[in-house]
C-alpha cells in the first residue's frame, strides 16, 4: 500500500472522529441549555470545562493524579517482576507448572473483584490495599502469557544451540527468553489495562486519595461536573497506555515478518 493511499483514509478517520465527538458534545450542551435534561444532575460540557479549570488551578487533582500513578507503578511493576519470574519458572520446569497451574487458572477465570474484601480484611484501607489489588489483577495475565511464550519456543532452535555446544543456561539466555518476548509483551499489555482497573477499584472503595477516590468523593457530594474531571483523566490515561503498548509491541517485533 503506497503512502498516498493511506493518508486520505487516515485523514478521513481523524476528521470523522472529531466531527462525531463534537456533534455529541453539541447535542449534550444543547439538551442541557434547553432544560431537556437536568443540568445539575447530568451536567454539560461547559460546566465540565469550568470544573476542569478550577480543579487544575487548585492543584488538588494533580496531587490525586500523582497518588494514582505511584500506586499504579508499584502494583504493575510488582506484577511484572513476580509474573514474569513465575512464568519463566513454570515454563522451564514441568513440576512447577503442574503444581502452580490450578491456582493460576482459578485466578484467571474468576472475576478478581470478588477478592477485594479479602484484601481489605488483611491489609486494611489505603495504599497497600490499592497496590495489592492492582498487583493481583495484572499479575495473572502476565504469568499466563509468559508461560505460553516459554512453551511456544521452537524446539529446533533449542537443538541448534545445543548442537553448537550450548549448555542449559545458554539455551535459556539465547533462545528461550528472546523467543518468549512477544508473548510476554502481550501479557504486559493486558496487564497494563487490568492494573489500571485495579487502581481505580482500590481507590474507589478503600482509599482516601487518588483519582478513583476523587470520583466517589464528588459523586457523593452530587458535584456531577467535578466528577468528570478525574474520570476524563482516567480515560485519557487508559488511551495513552494503549498507545504506549502498541508502540512498544511494534518496536520489539521488528524481526517478525
Amino acid at each position: 500500500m503506497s503512502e498516498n493511499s493511506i493518508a486520505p483514509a487516515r485523514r478521513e478517520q481523524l476528521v470523522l472522529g472529531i466531527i462525531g465527538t463534537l456533534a455529541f458534545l453539541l447535542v449534550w450542551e444543547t439538551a442541557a441549555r434547553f432544560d431537556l435534561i437536568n443540568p445539575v444532575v447530568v451536567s454539560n460540557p461547559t460546566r465540565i470545562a469550568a470544573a476542569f479549570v478550577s480543579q487544575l488551578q487548585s492543584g488538588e487533582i494533580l496531587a490525586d493524579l500523582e497518588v494514582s500513578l505511584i500506586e499504579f507503578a508499584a502494583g504493575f511493576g510488582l506484577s511484572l517482576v513476580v509474573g514474569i519470574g513465575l512464568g519463566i519458572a513454570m515454563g522451564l520446569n514441568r513440576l512447577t507448572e503442574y503444581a502452580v497451574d490450578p491456582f493460576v487458572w482459578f485466578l484467571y477465570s474468576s472475576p478478581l473483584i470478588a477478592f477485594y474484601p479479602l484484601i481489605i480484611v488483611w491489609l486494611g484501607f489505603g495504599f497497600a490495599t490499592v497496590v495489592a489489588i492492582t498487583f493481583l489483577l495484572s499479575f495473572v495475565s502476565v504469568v499466563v502469557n509468559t508461560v505460553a511464550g516459554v512453551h511456544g519456543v521452537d524446539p529446533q532452535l533449542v537443538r541448534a544451540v545445543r548442537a553448537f555446544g550450548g549448555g542449559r543456561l545458554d539455551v535459556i539466555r539465547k533462545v528461550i527468553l528472546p523467543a518468549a518476548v512477544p508473548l510476554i509483551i502481550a501479557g504486559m499489555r493486558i496487564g497494563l489495562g487490568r492494573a489500571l482497573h485495579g487502581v481505580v477499584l482500590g481507590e474507589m472503595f478503600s482509599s482516601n486519595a487518588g483519582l478513583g477516590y476523587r470520583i466517589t468523593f464528588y459523586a457523593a457530594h452530587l458535584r456531577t461536573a467535578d466528577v468528570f474531571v478525574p474520570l476524563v483523566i482516567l480515560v485519557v490515561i487508559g488511551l495513552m497506555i494503549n498507545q504506549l503498548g502498541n508502540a512498544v509491541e511494534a518496536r520489539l517485533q521488528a524481526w517478525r515478518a
Partner: protein
Amino acid sequence: MGRLDLEHLSLAYAQRSGAFLALADIDLSIRDGEFVTIVGPSGCGKSTLLMLIAALLAPTSGSVRLDGRLVTAPGSDRALVFQDFALLPWRTVLANVELGLELKGIPAQKRNAIAREHVAMVGLGAFERSYPHQLSGGMRQRVGIARALAVEPEVLLMDEPFGALDAQIRQVMGSELLRIWERGRKTILFVTHDIDEAIYLADRTIVMSASPGRIIADIPVTLQRPRPLDIRNDPAFTAYRQRIWDLLQREVMASNSWEQPQRAAVS
C-alpha cells in the same frame, strides 16, 4: 583431523508398543576430507545417525569416535546444518553466524571478524544486517552453512540441508556447497533422500535400509572433480543412479511406510 569411526552403533528407544530399533549395528569409517552422502528411505534413521554423531542423542550401544577420541557431548568439532535452517529469527545474519563462536567463548571483536569473513564466503556480504525473515530459503541456508563453518569444525554434519528448497535452487546450492568445500576440504557427512543429490556431491555414498536402519551399500563415487552441473546426464552418473535406485526401491517397498500410514506427528 576429521576422521570419524562409528563402531557397532545402535539406537533403540522405548515406546508404548515396546522397544523400537531405529539404527542397527552401524559400522562406518570416514576419512579426513571425505564428502560422504547418506541416502535412504524416509524414517530409516539417517537423521538419527547424524544426531548420534553430534551427540544430541546417546547410542544404546556402540561408539562414535572423532580422530580416535570418544564422542560424548555436543561440541564445535562437529557442526550441524539443519533442514529447516534453525536460525534465531531475532538475530541479524551476522549475529546468527556468531552464535557458535559466542558459545565457544570467543571475544566480541574476534567473533565479529570471523563471522563477517564467513558471511562473505557464502556470498551474503551485503546482507549482514538483514533478518532471516527478509531472506529467501536458499539465502537462509547459506547463513546456516556459514554459522557451521565459522566454528571451524572437524566434521560438517548436514541433515537434508536443501530439503526445504525448491528443486532448481537445490541444484545450485549443491554446486555452491561443493565450491565452498573445495576451499577447505573438510569432512562432510550429508544426509539426503534425493539420489541425484547424493551422487552429485559425494566421494562416497552410503545407502541405508528401511528401519531399523542398516548400511546396505557403501559406494565409492569416482566421477571427476570439480563436478559440472550437467554431469547428471553422464552415463557413469546414470549407472550410479540406477544401482542405488534398485537398492532403495526394494527397501521402500519393504518398509512400513509403503503399506501403512505415517506415524502421525505430535502437534
